[in-house]
């Protein structure tokens, strides 16, 4: 048990140091232009310490750029690690004759590294197959995404409600005056499944579109009132 507490204390210490590190911006200060040029020259001559210095003094850039991707849904410490990989790549491939400052080049590499990672994870999320196994049912049979689709309890309730409402509308339709019934049937495709515009109905019935609109509104209001009160149409 003591070991567990020790381990927990160590983990918490590490996490708190990390949080404080990011929060208080306790990064090494950026190098001056002269120091940076000197380090790059030394690194290109094979000096490992110069390379370490260049990476360390640009970590601030990683934290700054990773913060821009906060809303991506990825963990911040993942983004910072990915950015660090981008920074290492930048320092490795940078040469003085590139014509841009190391910080500019590194920022592009860090940004690209994070973007590539995010695109890759998004592609993977999108590639889920309907037939991928997602678990087993209570009898131990493998279940796929396709098995679950369409069997959502909310879908079932929605279907039942819709069917009940349709039934109620069919019961009340014959009670509407003939003209109103005809407009509603044509407008919502109740009999033939073909929905028509008010203009099409107006042309078929030889009346104006605005008159069709008035008939439709009147009929719907009657239906709505009757369905709410549960009484027959007057």
């Amino acid at each position, binding site marked *: 048990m003591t070991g567990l507490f020790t381990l927990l204390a160590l983990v918490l210490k590490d996490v708190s140091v990390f949080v404080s*590190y990011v929060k208080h911006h306790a990064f090494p200060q950026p190098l001056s232009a002269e120091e940076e040029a000197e380090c790059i020259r030394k690194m290109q001559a094979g000096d490992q310490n110069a390379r370490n210095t260049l990476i360390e003094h640009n970590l601030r850039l990683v934290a700054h750029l990773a913060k821009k991707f906060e809303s991506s849904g990825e963990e911040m410490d993942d983004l910072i*690690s990915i950015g660090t*990989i981008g920074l290492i790549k930048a320092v490795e491939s940078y040469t003085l004759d590139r014509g841009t400052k190391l910080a500019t080049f590194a920022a592009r590499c860090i940004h690209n*590294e994070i973007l590539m990672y995010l695109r890759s994870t998004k*592609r993977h999320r999108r590639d889920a197959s309907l037939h991928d196994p997602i678990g087993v049912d209570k009898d131990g049979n493998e279940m796929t995404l396709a098995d679950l689709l369409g069997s959502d309890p909310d879908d079932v309730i929605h279907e039942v409600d819709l069917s009940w409402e349709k039934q109620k509308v069919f019961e009340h339709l014959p009670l509407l005056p003939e003209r109103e019934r005809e407009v509603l049937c044509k407008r919502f495709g109740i009999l033939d499944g073909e929905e028509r515009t008010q203009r099409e109905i107006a042309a078929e019935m030889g009346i104006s579109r605005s008159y069709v609109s008035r008939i439709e509104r009147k009929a719907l209001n009657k239906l709505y009132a009757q369905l709410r009160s549960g009484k027959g149409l007057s």
Partner: protein
Amino acid sequence: MIGLDGKQAPQCIVCQQEKADGITVCGQFICTDCERAIVSTDVSDVRYKHYVDCMKRIWWRVCP
């Protein structure tokens, strides 16, 4: 493992082995082999996530 300078070789935060050559970022050592592997691994490779997790150690320590 003792290096040429007589000092204990640092342990790589990725492969956990003691190696002489590599980079040290904020006191955390990455050996040359692992560094090459990290920079050449595609983001969609399963090993990439492992490297990302290992790299977190760099940020878990205050720079000396």
